[in-house]
C-alpha cells in the first residue's frame, strides 16, 4: 500500500471509520514509514485540537433578542389570516400566538382572504357612493364640520356595513406592509372617507398590551400598521380602532363615534350613540410633527362646543364663543368627545402613552371634571 492510500486510512481513522483489517494495514505502514507516522501524529493532534475547540455560547439569549421580530412575524401572518374572521366571526380577543397557529395550519387562508377582499372592495364602492349621496343630501348645514355631522346620521346598519367594508380596504392598504410610507399614504388618502364613517380609537392600545413583546414600541410603522390592521379586521362589526399616531392624522380620522354595534371592551360602554351630534373637523394642524389633534363636539342642544386643544378640552358657549369650561391638562391624547343627550355632560377619553385609556366626564352644571370609574 502506498502512502497516499494510507493517508486516506489515517483520515478515516480520525473519524472512527476504519474496519479492523484497515486499522492493521495503517499500523503496519506507519511502523515502517516515518513520514506517514509523523503525518499521522500531526493529524491526530490536529483532530484532538479541533475536538477541543471552545464550545462557545452566545453572549446573550438570541431567542429573547428576536422575540419582538417573531411577534411581528405573527402579526404579519395573522393579518393574512384575519380576513376571513373579519367577515363576521367576532374573534378580536384572540391572542397573536393563536392566530399564527391558524395561519400555519391553513395556509390557503391567504388565498381565500384575497378573493373575499376583492369582492368586498368592489362592494365598498357601492356603499361609499350611497354614503356620498346621503352626505350631500344633508350637507345644507353650515359649518365646516357638516360633512361629519351628516355622516353621523347614517343608520346603524349602514355604519356596520361600511365598517366591515372599510376594514377590507384598509387591508389592501396594508397589503404591502414593507413599504410603510406607502401604506400610510393610502390610509391618509382614505381618511376623509373614514373620518365620516368611522372613528378609530381604543382598540389598538388594547392590542398593544396583549402583544407583550412589542408593547408600546410602535416605532416600526409597517409593523404598527399591521397590528392596527389586524385588530381592526378581527374587530369585525364592533369596536373602533385607533391608529398609531405616526401614521394617522387623528383629527381627520376621528369623525365621532359611530358605534356599529357594541363598543369594544377598552371603550367602556354606551357613550357612543349614533344620534349624537358630533362633529369631527378633519384639520391637519401638525402637533409634535405628526398628529393633528383638534377634535370638537357640539352639544345636542347646540349651546356648547367642546374642543380638544392640545392636552386640554375647552368648552365654548355657542352663542358668544366664550370659554365656559377648561379641563385640567391631561397626559395623553384626548379623544372621543361625546355629549350626553341632555347636553349636561361631556365624556371624553384620555389615551395614555402606555396604552391605557382613562375616561372622564365633565358635568356642565357643576363644572366638575371627574374620572369616570364605572
Amino acid at each position, binding site marked *: 500500500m502506498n502512502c497516499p492510500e494510507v*493517508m*486516506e486510512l489515517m*483520515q*478515516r481513522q*480520525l*473519524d472512527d*471509520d476504519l474496519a479492523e483489517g484497515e486499522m492493521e494495514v495503517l499500523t503496519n505502514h506507519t511502523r515502517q514509514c516515518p513520514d506517514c507516522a509523523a*503525518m499521522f501524529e*500531526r*493529524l491526530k493532534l*490536529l*483532530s484532538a*485540537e*479541533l*475536538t477541543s*475547540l*471552545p*464550545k*462557545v*455560547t*452566545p*453572549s446573550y*439569549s*438570541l*431567542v429573547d*433578542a*428576536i*422575540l419582538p*421580530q*417573531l411577534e411581528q*412575524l*405573527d402579526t404579519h401572518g395573522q393579518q393574512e389570516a384575519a380576513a376571513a374572521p373579519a367577515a363576521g366571526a367576532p374573534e378580536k380577543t384572540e391572542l397573536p*400566538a393563536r392566530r*399564527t*397557529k*391558524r395561519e*400555519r*395550519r391553513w395556509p390557503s387562508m391567504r388565498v381565500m382572504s384575497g378573493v373575499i377582499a376583492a369582492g368586498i372592495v368592489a362592494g365598498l364602492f357601492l356603499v361609499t357612493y350611497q354614503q356620498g349621496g346621503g352626505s350631500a343630501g344633508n350637507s345644507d348645514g353650515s359649518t365646516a364640520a357638516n360633512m361629519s355631522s351628516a355622516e353621523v346620521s347614517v343608520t346603524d346598519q349602514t355604519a356596520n356595513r361600511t365598517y366591515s367594508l372599510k376594514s377590507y380596504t384598509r387591508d389592501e392598504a396594508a397589503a404591502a406592509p414593507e413599504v410603510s410610507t406607502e401604506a400610510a399614504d393610502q390610509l391618509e388618502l382614505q381618511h376623509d372617507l373614514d373620518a365620516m364613517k368611522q372613528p378609530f380609537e381604543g382598540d389598538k392600545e388594547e392590542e398593544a398590551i396583549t402583544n407583550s413583546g412589542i408593547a408600546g414600541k410602535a416605532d416600526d410603522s409597517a409593523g404598527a400598521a399591521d397590528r392596527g390592521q389586524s385588530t381592526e379586521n378581527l374587530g369585525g362589526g364592533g369596536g373602533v380602532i385607533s391608529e398609531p399616531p405616526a401614521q394617522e392624522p387623528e383629527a381627520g380620522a376621528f369623525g365621532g363615534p359611530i358605534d356599529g354595534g357594541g363598543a369594544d371592551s377598552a371603550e367602556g360602554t354606551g357613550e357612543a350613540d349614533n344620534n349624537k351630534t358630533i362633529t369631527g373637523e378633519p384639520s391637519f394642524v401638525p402637533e409634535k410633527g405628526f398628529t393633528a389633534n383638534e377634535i370638537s363636539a357640539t352639544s345636542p342642544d347646540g349651546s356648547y362646543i367642546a374642543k380638544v386643544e392640545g392636552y386640554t378640552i375647552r368648552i365654548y358657549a355657542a352663542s358668544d364663543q366664550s370659554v365656559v369650561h377648561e379641563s385640567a391638562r391631561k397626559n395623553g391624547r384626548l379623544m372621543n368627545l361625546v355629549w350626553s343627550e341632555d347636553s349636561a355632560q361631556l365624556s371624553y377619553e384620555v389615551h395614555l402613552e402606555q396604552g391605557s385609556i382613562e375616561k372622564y366626564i365633565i358635568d356642565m352644571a357643576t363644572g366638575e371634571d371627574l374620572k369616570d370609574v364605572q
Partner: protein
Amino acid sequence: MVEPDLIRAAQSGDRDALITLLREIETHVYRTAYYILNNEQDALDAAQEALIRIYTKIGSYEEKAQFKTWIQRIVTNICIDKFRRNKPTVSIDEHDMVFHEKRNVEDEVMSAYAVRDIREAIDKLPEHHRAVVVLRYLQDFSYNEIADSLDLPLNTVKSYLFRARQQLQTLLHDYQKGGVRG
C-alpha cells in the same frame, strides 16, 4: 438533542413549544455560525437570522430528515451566504499557506495559541471545507449527517474533510516549524 414531541408540538402550532425549541437549539446554531464566520458579531446576526427562519419554516420540516441536520442546513446556508458577501472566495489551492505574524512564545499560554492558530487556519479554508470541519468537530456530525446538512454527496464530504484537515495540518505545522510552539 431536541425531543421529537417538542418538534411536533411546535409544528402543530404550539408557539410556546416553538420558542422552547428555539431556546434549546440556539447555542448549537450560534456555535456553527461562530466558527464558520470567525466573528462574534456576524455569528450573532447569522444565528438570529437562522432562528427566525426556523421559526417561520418549522412547518416545512419533515421527520424523514434529522432535525439537527435540518437546522444546521439552515444556519450553514445563511453563513455561507454571509461569507460570500463578506469575503472574496478562494480555492483551497490558491491559499497562501504561510502566516506572516511573528509570535513570541512568552506572550501567551500554549493552549490559547492552539485555539487561535486553529481558528485562524480554519478561517483560511474555503466555505464548504470550513462548514464540513465545523459540523464534524463542533456538532460532532457523522459523514452522513454532514452530507444531509450541506446537501453534498457523501464522497464530497469526505474529500472536503480530508483536504481541510490536511490543509489545517500543514498550516499548523508551519507554525510549529516557525518556532511558535517549539
